[in-house]
């Protein structure tokens, strides 16, 4: 079912947790709220679930205004951050808890639905055990089963994978995506892990300090970040960002200076943008995968710009790729390379950047220059 949030504001005393939050979620969509801890993601989710009431604004589920309804009357199910299985009840009693509370179906019906959901999540052999007898991953699946069994219109997940080990997390992410596609339910998922958000979301809502920074598909937030914060938050390893760079215009082309002596000449396209904006200094950002090497002395081809002499400081091998950290007079740069290239710590090399994927931000407002 579709969800609509209009101007949601929630304060705790003087602290503003969420401010003027507007979002429409379509039926069957998987939306991820992404942001650092304490940015208001969970509070927004609680407002949708009914665990908190917003100070201002309206929450609608379907066509119905539910702003002031208690959670039990909203037809939502939620998986909470800590696993939160009831420790005094068996897994079966945990899963059937919601159905028993709502008293909508018969005992046989409850039994049937619990078995069905348990088999979907592959925990049917564990339903008679107590929560503490299960492993972390099994407990996690039990909480998801507890939410799923209610056949909710909306499925809310508050960092459900935060306590899982890395491998299990990946499995669960795929599982969640599969459930969303198979059952077609609307899911709102909260996480601070950008990789998780990128991998499962239809759309990502990037949040910071109670505000929405950007809403977009994973590709949009990755390739068209609206501002410096989104650019820095999305992607791993993070973008190389150089703040407050001075620039001069030589022969009709702007040349950006990073630190004292690292110069990047910009193409005409970007030069124009800078001149139109009338700024004195800009923030320049480059993704690690857009950093390349050139043999010193040779001019890089058309699509690459700049040629900086930097020293290799640290090398991290990941098999599929190599992360290389460069340094020049305290200015750091991270690059991502295919494993075929050979690197040696301490060597001085010439790096260049892919022109197409260079990002420029206004140093004062942190907005992207378009």
């Amino acid at each position, binding site marked *: 079912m579709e969800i609509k949030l209009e101007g949601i504001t929630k304060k705790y005393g003087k602290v503003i947790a969420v401010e003027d939050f507007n979002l429409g979620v379509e039926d069957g969509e998987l939306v991820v709220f992404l942001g650092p801890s304490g940015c208001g993601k969970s509070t927004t989710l609680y407002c949708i679930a009914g665990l908190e009431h917003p100070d201002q604004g309206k929450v609608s589920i379907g066509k119905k205004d539910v702003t002031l309804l208690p959670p*039990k009357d909203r037809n939502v199910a*939620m998986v909470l951050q800590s696993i*939160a299985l*009831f420790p005094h009840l068996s897994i079966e009693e945990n899963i059937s808890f*919601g159905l028993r*509370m709502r008293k909508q179906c018969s005992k046989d019906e409850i039994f049937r639905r619990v078995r069905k959901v348990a088999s979907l999540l592959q925990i049917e052999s564990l339903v008679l055990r107590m929560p503490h007898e299960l492993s972390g991953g099994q407990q996690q699946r039990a909480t998801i089963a507890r939410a799923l069994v209610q056949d909710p219109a909306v499925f809310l997940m508050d960092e459900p994978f935060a306590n899982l080990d890395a491998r299990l997390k990946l499995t669960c992410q795929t599982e969640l995506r599969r459930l969303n596609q198979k059952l077609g339910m609307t899911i709102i998922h909260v996480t601070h892990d950008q990789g998780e958000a990128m991998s499962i979301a239809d759309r990502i809502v990037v949040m910071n300090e109670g505000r929405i920074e950007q809403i977009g598909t994973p590709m949009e937030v990755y390739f068209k970040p609206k501002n410096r914060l989104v650019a820095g938050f999305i992607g791993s390893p993070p973008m190389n960002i150089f703040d407050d760079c001075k620039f001069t215009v030589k022969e009709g082309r702007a040349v950006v200076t990073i630190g004292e002596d690292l110069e990047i000449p910009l193409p005409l396209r970007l030069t124009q943008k800078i001149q139109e904006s009338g700024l004195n200094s800009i923030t320049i950002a480059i993704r690690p995968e857009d950093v390349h090497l050139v043999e010193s002395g040779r001019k890089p081809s058309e699509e690459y710009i700049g040629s900086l002499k930097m020293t290799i400081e640290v090398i991290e091998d990941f098999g599929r790729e190599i992360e290389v950290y460069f340094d020049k007079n305290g200015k750091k740069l991270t690059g991502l390379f295919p494993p075929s290239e050979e690197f040696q710590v301490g060597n001085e090399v010439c790096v260049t950047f892919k022109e197409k994927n260079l990002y420029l931000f206004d140093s004062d407002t942190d907005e992207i220059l378009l």
Partner: protein
Amino acid sequence: MWKRIWNQTKDLIFKGDHSRLYQIVFMLLVVIFVLQALFPIYWLFISSIKPISELYDRDQALIPGSVNFSGYMNIWTFMDFSKNLLNSFIISGFATIIILFIGSLAGYVLGRTKIKGKTAIMVLILALSMFPQVSFLLPLFEAFSRYQLLDTHIAMILPDSAYLLPVGVLALRAFYSQIPQDLERAARVNGCTRLGALWRVIIPLSMPGFVSVGLMMFTLVYNEFFFANLFSMTKASQPAPVAVLRFELGYYQPWDLVTAASIVCMIPILLVMILAHKQVLKGLMMRGAV
């Protein structure tokens, strides 16, 4: 055998530390402390089983010459002590139920909700329980006599539960606040109201605490003397401790009966202690499971 027990205790308490002199002095002090705490109870007990002739003798022996349990029979026949015990159970039972019922709700509000001025309310409630009991005496006596409640169970149930409620609220609040917020949230998104979550999740999970508070309240009300002594006049409402004090046959106090009744009075509390001990262990085990 004594040597083995001594060695084991020594290892447990001192873990190989300290000199031999320190160990002996330490143990000696422990023994003195235990003796001085237990001696009055021992004295009470032997007095209750002494024959009358020995009980009123000028020379009192630490070990009675002969044993006579007639006191334990006579308290039921001459004094109708079972009626007093029943009164005690009625008063303590109802007061405990009232305290747990109101305390569980108040503890929830004060421990788990965000209400402005929560601390102020808490302090106010606590302050009420710090007043001396005697300051409530006149108004209570007036009220009870006007509504003809004097010498009824209610005349003790009401003031006892009101006076002990703050302590109960405070204790329950502490137990509640240990239950993770997410469990309550989970209950609420699974179709419970706030009260439903309290009843089905929070209370079951704080059961060890709930039972401990209940047993503690039961004991405190059972031992309560001040209100009981003033508001009960006859067998109709007199709880056991007050009855023991008022035992009289003609013009003399029958010490054989008083001592026997005192020992009988202790038995329920001893049972409560054993129960509480089990419950505390159970609580610890559950904590591990959660």
